């Protein structure tokens, strides 16, 4: 497991690939749905990709909280820490 910065960059790249936008657009506060055009399938895909990459399980009730990169990093770190 790399440093937190690495994890942040990895997640940013992963999301950029799934949303098909440049990674520079994925700022910590940019809203996935309103600003970056995420749909419900992409949301599921992002969670599935993070779970697979870090071998963690993010319970469904957390999906509602994932509105921006900042949120995703926070939830991922929370579950990485629990490992």
């Amino acid at each position, binding site marked *: 497991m790399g440093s937190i910065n690495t994890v942040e960059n990895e997640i940013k790249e992963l999301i950029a690939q*799934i949303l098909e936008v440049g990674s520079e657009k994925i700022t910590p506060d940019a809203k996935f749905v309103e600003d970056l055009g995420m749909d419900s*399938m*992409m949301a599921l*895909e992002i969670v*599935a*990709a993070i*779970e697979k990459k870090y071998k963690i399980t993010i319970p469904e009730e957390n999906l509602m909280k994932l509105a921006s990169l900042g949120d995703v990093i926070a939830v991922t770190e929370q579950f990485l820490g629990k490992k």
Partner: protein
Amino acid sequence: MKDNIVITGIGVVSSIGIGKDAFWQALEEGKSGVKPVTLFDTSKLRVKMGTEISDFKPEEILGSKGLRNLDRATKLLLCAGKLALDDAGLEINPEDAGRAGISVGTTVGSLWSISEFDKSALRDGPHFVNPAEFPNTVINSPPSQLAIRLKSKGPCATISSGFTSSLDAVKYGIDLIRNKRAQIVLAGGVEEFCEQTYLGFYKVNLLAGVKGPELSCPFDKRRNGVIFGEGSAVLVLESQESAQKRGARIYARILGYGTSFYPYAINKYEPQGKGLKKAMKFALEDAGLSAENIDYICAAANSTEEADLIETEVIKEVFAKYAKTILVSSTKSMLGETFSAAGALAVAATIGAINKDFIPPTINYAQKDPACDLNYVPNKSSKEKINKAAVNAFGPNGSNSCLVVSKI
């Protein structure tokens, strides 16, 4: 009084050309789409050839966004659909979205996706499958993705009747318009080239190259099986009234359709072609025509020993004294056996023949089979003015269909 249904747009993605113009030109030149398989490894098989679409770049037709999770069958159909809609000079706006329908024939379009999804579950554990790949695993995924992409809100149907799927899908589209459930219908078929289907055909001894030369040579004495292939063709159907009202270019009119399911035994052609005979007769009746009115038959003959002979015999029975003079050719000599997409590709080819005054040849014709003695337009296309043509589709699992089209 039934609405006259016409074809106002054509989109083709095939191993001999992408886009209607390239496709028609290739047919006229007698170009072969057969080449060594590259999409998967055939080193352990006795056969190596297929009609893959080797220069397929969907992003050139669809743009680069939103293609990431779509499988090959879906991308083939999306391209053919977009080309057809553009060719018809149509756009689907929110106000008329409910009047745009989709009807597509496909049978094994999701086999590769199912296999990949399953492999990923086995390899990584079921919890770690990618949910975005799941939609590809259903057979109605290609037409559904087409509807999503075009934002159409009319009826969207998938017709899975094996070898006759795309002709049957065209009929379904015709009925949607006549029943006022849609004003335009994108009707056609798609089948992708994948290892699972190739192996399946190989195992049931349908592929050429095991019992004889690895060629697609319909009606030829050396024929011994199909060369498997892929492709997609989409036709824009609408009523003649609707087409004329918007000043659309009309390629052809659909005069009639006939179908007959005649079961015999699994993976075996019914030797007397009773189903195909009925389908052709029904189609002629539906079109209000007799045998002498047909100038050209776009045959379903696919280089198997049985099918080509059966079709020859049926043509002789249905067309009687006209059988020897009618022009018959098999575009599968060039395109290979594209299974569910074959019917739609054949219709697209036939419309090219009608509009450009040529008959596509039956290529690879070198050794005559005395039992197959019709005029198959061997090897070189023939310059002919055709008015009315019949397009056949049938397979070894009981389905038989025939569509009759004419110059407008």
